[in-house]
């Protein structure tokens, strides 16, 4: 409750919350906002109005215009919201769970197993993230789920490190010792006593990472190893806009709509998550809680 109050009081976090709610509404109402064409095999397939390369400006039938290949930009932006939520939440939630499991095992059982796990974290961390994700997506083939697997495989380590440093502290606390002394088993001790008390930093980190995962996924699409061609995805729309940034002679911004609409969508989406994540950190991170006020 206190968290919610803070979120709504601070103007920046209020803006983030409102933006996020707007995106949830757009994603939820996607079937109402757009019209499905009979030839679409899936709602995530962007409808196209012909096969011309040259983008066409906004008109009554395509309010955001059409991009390269006559894909409808409005449709792509609206359904791309769902894609963004799938990627952001899917990657972050699974990554956080995997990282938490690895981190807890690593610290709780210590010894050789823990050492090996934490060194594995080091190695995964020293691999350039974007390149790793590109290699895996290329091996698995284009597609949303392939891309998510790639992002998860190289993003769980951060949570493992975070949870480890938390647990190292908590493990030595008296209430944990007390629980152990009263005969609580390992699994129960971790699940009931340790994790609930060490999970907030992971939650904060996860909310901060949701935006950046969407950014990275769009970057993969931008670099040409993301979703299948024609899939409603902001990164793909931006990569299509890349060929049209130099307008026609006399009109340098002739194709502005190909870049501005999907660019704005991804910018606002990431901004919303960053603002909310920032506020959550201010609320939940004890180091910032009693920060001195001038």
């Amino acid at each position, binding site marked *: 409750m206190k968290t919610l109050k803070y979120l709504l009081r601070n103007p920046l976090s209020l803006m983030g919350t409102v933006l996020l709610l707007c995106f949830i509404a757009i994603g939820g109402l996607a079937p109402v906002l757009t019209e499905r064409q009979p030839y679409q095999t899936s709602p995530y397939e962007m409808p196209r109005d012909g096969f011309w390369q040259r983008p066409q400006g906004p008109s009554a039938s395509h309010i955001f215009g059409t991009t390269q290949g006559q894909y409808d930009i409005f449709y792509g932006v609206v359904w791309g919201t769902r894609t963004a939520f799938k990627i952001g939440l899917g990657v972050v939630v699974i990554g956080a769970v995997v990282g938490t499991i690895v981190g807890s095992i690593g610290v709780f059982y210590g010894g050789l197993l823990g050492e090996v796990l934490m060194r594995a974290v080091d190695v995964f961390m020293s691999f350039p993230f*974007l390149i790793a994700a590109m290699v895996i997506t290329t091996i698995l083939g284009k597609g949303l789920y392939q891309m998510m697997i790639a992002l998860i495989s190289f993003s769980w380590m951060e949570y493992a490190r975070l949870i480890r440093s938390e647990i190292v502290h908590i493990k030595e606390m008296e209430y944990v010792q007390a629980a152990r002394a009263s005969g609580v088993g390992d699994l129960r001790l971790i699940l009931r006593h340790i994790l609930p008390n060490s999970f907030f930093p992971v939650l904060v980190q996860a909310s901060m990472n949701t935006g950046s995962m969407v950014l990275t996924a769009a970057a993969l699409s931008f670099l040409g190893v993301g979703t299948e061609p024609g899939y409603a995805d902001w990164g793909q729309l931006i990569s299509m806009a890349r060929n049209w940034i130099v307008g026609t002679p006399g009109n340098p911004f002739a194709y502005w709509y190909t*870049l501005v609409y999907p*660019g704005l969508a991804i*910018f606002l989406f990431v901004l919303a998550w960053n603002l909310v994540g920032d506020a959550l950190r201010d609320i939940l991170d004890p180091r910032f809680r009693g920060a001195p006020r*001038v």
Partner: protein
Amino acid sequence: MLAYIVRRLLFLPVVLLALALLVFSLSMLLTPTQRLALYCPDPSHMKGGIEHARALIELYGLDDPFYAQFGRWMGNIIRGNLGWSASASMPVGRALIELLPATAELALLALVPLVLGGIWLGTKAATHHNGIIDHSIRVFTILGWSFPDYVFGLIALMVFYGWLGWFPSGRLSQWAVLEVASGGFRAYTGMNIADAILNGNGRVLLDALRHLVLPVITLSYVWWAALVRIMRSSMLETLHQDYVQTARAKGLRERVVQNRHARRNALLPATTMAGIIAAHLMGGLVITETVFDYYGLGQFAARAAQNLDFPAVLGFALYFAVILVVVNLVVDVLYACLDPRVRLE
């Protein structure tokens, strides 16, 4: 301290070996035929036809057990042979050496506004805590943090290249490429700016700078938030220390208190962040280089990844790991020099 440095460096080969194992395992996700196809895309067009593909798999041992293939691969790498990069059409080692100056030039140049501006903005935000300046700086940096670099870069190109025609993409103009390649121009470092200065060639210098303006601005803007945020909170913390109050009580001017007493100590955490950023920049600016068509290590790695050019991916990963370890070490040592309370053990 020396013992600490040596111990950290001794850990490096272990990381490199593990990385090699990781990349090799990734490549083993492909079947032998697929791995052969990375080098000859269509075996049916080969002299011997499909039959020949079988023979090639046999010849290069692509069907051998994992450890045998890994051993052979590692053997080559240890002898200094990183292999052939099919996507760059040259040996991996040579590609890394040739492209490093391009990326280093961009990264080092971007670090200047990034670090100086970041420290300045962070200090300003802290000294005007909760005032209008603080809020403006927070908004300015969080907008940059949320801006996808590819969108920012494309918009910058749209305005400054498409419309105004001031700053083109690429690394050099066509005429400058020819001039740099000509006999009269000596390449001392491979970095165009440094070379142009050393050769006393003002025209090339100007051209190189013109190509660097947009990528440098893009990088600074999207990275500022990380540095400003840390600088701000550490400066806030320092401003409430007793010794800062003492300095104020002594009657020192606020400027002196802020700049000489508080900021110096507040710089410590920012040093770590600057190191992390430097490592990332040196580690290849995949997106920035792609957007601005600036051929450096980032684009090399991106092409390698798209074409599953495993020797090149590994070469790049090893380079990145070395950079990470070295930069982290430099930051640690620097930290110990700046803060006498820190002992490296």
